[in-house]
């Protein structure tokens, strides 16, 4: 009896007494406590789930159903009753995909495809963009429409895109539909990538369902390595620097010095990378532990030597999705289309309008607007294949505009997309004039400056992405513009935010580490014995825990 008592004591000492209430709270939706991969609750639930999963590995439908149930529970914990929306949209999409597959006539097929795309986008549009549209309309025509009280279901942008990929691929006859609804639902609701990607393509994922479930030693190594990296990136670097520094500066940029604004911009660049890629890595790692291989989503994007390169390394699953289903659909580099011309024209028209209306207060907006338009026009006028480049650039620009909007409903996301679209066009014409030599790699200096310029352009665009609104973004940029060289003051600031700056430095050093070194680290990790791996993972849990409980840094005003 003594042993049971002492175990009980030990348990209470370490976890606290567990009440019925607490147990209930583990299973009931709480909008303030989402079930993220980096929470203790997820770890606990996953351990139980995984144990049973290992026993089910040789079954098929039982295993699929088991995972689906866990996924739905996982989604319920994040979005409450809206898990029904996920179910509903999956039933509709599955039905439509079946019809499209069976239909022989191309025209009819197309009609069903259009219906399904409209349905999906309407759903996404209502939840994500309704209020944005209302606000924009009210602003432009001084309307008085009331805002809807819309809850944004977690991950709706991701699973909508995923089910769209399934239908479009069936339409394009790239894949065969799943044998039944269960298999389809498994694909759409698969919890590792459900709420934050990567956006898995049906043609990559579906074949894996039918394969014999397999998990090699190497898979486990890869998975653990990804999870460890992801945890550190997401919960340590990203969360800490955002709460303790970046958020504050972007809240009220004018209350901080130019140097703090600049550092907050760099800070945000590493924060958003660590946030997105860290969560993706965890998702990929967890999927891998279940025996599923999801595609890589980030390949050290800030090492890009050009903006085109950047989009091959940043959020790869999204950019390939946009390329395959948006860019190609509106004509790609072959032909122009109504949509391909509409959005850029609207954007540039709006830009010029903005410049003209602000002309009385400042001429700068007009200059920015005119140079934007001119730059875009030059990007195809100067090209030797004028017609084709024009089409390509318009379609590319549309893709980036809508891609920007996908990230969030707000003008600043459109601006962010437009900047990237413009940069892609400019880079295209630049490489036409200065083609890179294929046979030999560029010299070090050239590469260094390419990376430096690309990185700073990306950071500049992130300012729009992060700022609460367009006005705040301009404040940050203005403030940075007034930066003067005052190393003494910089030192004081850096010391004042010591932890934040150390983490930022750690993040960047890790990011820019040569691949050879990261591969070495991976190699060493693979060779460590099982027990030691567990200890390393346990240590990382502790770091995550200790960061989560670390008090936030009190606000500081410096004096110079």
């Amino acid at each position, binding site marked *: 009896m003594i042993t049971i008592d002492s175990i009980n004591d030990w348990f209470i000492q370490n976890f606290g007494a567990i009440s019925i209430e607490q147990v209930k709270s583990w299973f009931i939706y709480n909008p303030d406590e989402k079930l993220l991969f980096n929470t203790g609750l997820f770890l606990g639930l996953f351990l139980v789930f995984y144990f049973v999963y290992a026993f089910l590995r040789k079954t098929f439908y039982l295993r699929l159903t088991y995972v689906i149930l866990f996924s739905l529970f996982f989604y319920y914990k994040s979005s409450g009753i809206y898990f029904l929306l996920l179910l509903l949209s999956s039933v509709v999409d599955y039905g439509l995909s079946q019809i499209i597959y069976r239909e022989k006539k191309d025209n009819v097929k197309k009609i069903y495809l259009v219906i399904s795309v409209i349905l999906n986008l309407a759903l996404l549009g209502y939840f994500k963009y309704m209020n944005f549209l209302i606000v924009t309309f009210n602003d432009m025509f001084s309307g008085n429409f009331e805002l809807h009280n819309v809850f944004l279901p977690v991950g709706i942008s991701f699973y909508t895109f995923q089910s769209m990929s399934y239908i479009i691929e069936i339409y394009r006859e790239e894949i065969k539909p799943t044998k039944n609804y269960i298999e389809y639902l498994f694909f759409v609701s698969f919890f590792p990538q459900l709420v934050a990607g990567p956006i898995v393509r049906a043609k990559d994922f579906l074949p894996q369902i039918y394969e014999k479930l*397999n998990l090699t030693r190497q898979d486990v190594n890869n998975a653990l390595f990804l999870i460890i990296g992801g945890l550190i990136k997401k919960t340590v670097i990203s969360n800490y620097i955002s*709460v303790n520094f970046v958020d504050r500066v972007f809240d009220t940029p004018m209350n901080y010095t130019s140097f703090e604004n600049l550092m907050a911009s760099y800070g945000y660049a590493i924060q958003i990378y660590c946030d997105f890629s860290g969560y993706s890595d965890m998702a990929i790692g967890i999927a891998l532990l279940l025996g599923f291989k999801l595609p890589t989503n980030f390949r050290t994007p800030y090492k890009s030597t050009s903006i085109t390169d950047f989009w091959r390394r940043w959020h790869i699953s999204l950019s390939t999705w946009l390329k395959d289903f948006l860019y190609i659909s509106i004509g790609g580099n072959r032909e122009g289309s109504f949509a391909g011309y509409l959005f850029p024209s609207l954007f540039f028209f709006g830009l010029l309008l903005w410049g003209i209306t602000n002309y009385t207060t400042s001429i700068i907006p007009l200059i920015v607007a005119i140079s934007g338009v001119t730059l875009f026009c030059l990007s195809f006028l100067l090209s030797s294949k004028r017609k084709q480049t024009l089409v390509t650039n318009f379609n590319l620009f549309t893709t980036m505009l809508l891609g920007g909007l996908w990230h969030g409903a707000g003008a600043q996301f459109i601006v962010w997309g437009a900047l990237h679209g413009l940069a892609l066009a400019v880079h295209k014409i630049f490489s036409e004039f200065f083609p890179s030599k294929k046979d030999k790699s560029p010299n070090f200096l050239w590469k260094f400056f390419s990376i430096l310029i690309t990185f700073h352009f990306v950071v500049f665009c992130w300012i729009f992405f992060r700022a609460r609104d367009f006005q705040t973004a301009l404040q940050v940029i203005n403030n940075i513009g007034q930066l003067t060289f005052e190393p003494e003051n910089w030192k004081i600031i850096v010391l004042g935010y010591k932890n934040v700056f150390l983490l930022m430095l750690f993040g960047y050093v890790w990011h820019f580490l040569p691949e050879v070194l990261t591969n070495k680290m991976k190699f060493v990790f693979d060779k460590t014995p099982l027990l030691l791996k567990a200890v390393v993972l346990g240590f990382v849990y502790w770091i995550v825990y200790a960061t989560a409980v670390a008090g936030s840094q009190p606000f500081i005003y410096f004096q110079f």
Partner: protein
Amino acid sequence: MNTKSYFFQSFAIVALAFVAFIGFKQILPNKIFSDSKLDSKNVLIDSLLLESVAKDSLSSEDDSISESNGKQKIVYDKTGGIEFPSETFDNYKGYQYLISFYEKLYQLEKNPQSKVRIAYYGDSMTDGDLIVQDVRVNYQERFGGNGVGFVSITSESAASRASVKSLYSKNWKMQSYLNVKRPVSPFGVNGHVFFANNRSNATWVQYEAGTNKFSTTLDNPTLFYGRSSKSGKVNFIIGKDTLKKSLVSNSLVNTLKVTSGSIKAFKASFVQSDSIPIYGFNFDNGSGVHVDNFSQRGNSGLPISMFDASVMQAFNNTLKYDLVILHYGTNVLNYGTKNYSWYEKGMTKVVNKIKESFPGVSILIISTADKSTKYAQEMKTDSAVVPLMNAQKKYALETESGFVNLYTLMGGDGSMVKWVDESPAKANKDYTHFNQRGAKAIGKLLYDQLNKGYEDYKVLRQKRDVNPNKRRAAGRVDSVSVKTDSVNE
């Protein structure tokens, strides 16, 4: 190939890691990224606060905060025949002590040509004219008045202030009561003193009216400067005109009108005016309510006790303050102490200094707002907030000042977390400062409480005027006394 082993091995690793985590949790410290103590030399914080805190930690004085009985009744003596209903310590507002201010408002309401002036002293919460501009607009909306009031020459938050835009040359020499004990010349009413000491380059400041309601012009811009043995020159540049004036610095506080009437912008360029203490410019249209924002980042409020009373009286002769608001607390929350008797003592001195400086003025103490700190993994109301708020209430009561309990006014326990998380957010992620939207809400809450007192005052005043004559009209008296009862509840 046997896959069994790897699923279970992989499970074993995750499970063992969990066990390892429990182990690490026991042997390793609880936190990383400890809150490192900053070199206070580089951080904007007032020196008197640091001294008081240091002294406090030395004295072995036991916790002298006698848990004052919250239900204890506070009964007022009549002031000018007016007596506000008694209240409890818990709900202390002290309208009784604002009577002279309310009377001035009443006179203003009857005669719109007269004026009422409020000095609003604060810390970073009121930086960039946050909160204060909303109080100002609320008052000017109801009682009239145009202009942003007194504005310093330079300020670390000038860039973020929208109610008046100011730019200034970099060669101003500034001394602040925050960290200077013996200024070259006494501090102005704003707690600062500026010198245009550069002989080779012009030292200038430029103001432009902002877009706030009732402040879209600079009304009767007037320079305030102090005494000096030397004289100096200043050029006022309005549009294309330049007015050359000389600075006669005979009195403790001197004024020089830039121009009469309302202008949009002007520039003041000081030439050879070294050693003349310069304080700032005042913008008001001469009637209605005017609210001066004297905010200073990092201020605990204690430095006000260093004011030179005679200089302040000289300021008061021109500006004529009716209410002084002291809005502090944010900067005294972070010292790990919950015994605020030292702060109580210090601030009592401050209030006494204000009384000496601005004779007959009403004083209003605004308590600290809610502020959150992370406990375990959750943001909660900092444990120092309530003790500080109580200390502030105590010195408000003891010095016969009005009191606004901003902590309960904004929602009490846990309210800051709500203000931050709300969409759109009303406070910043430091869980301390309000943003524009939140400041507007706070400004309204403050105004509403002050105004409630004023409305009550008007009723009481009427009752006083009516009662002696109509004592016989029993019915009327009854109805009034019933009213009083309901207030008493």
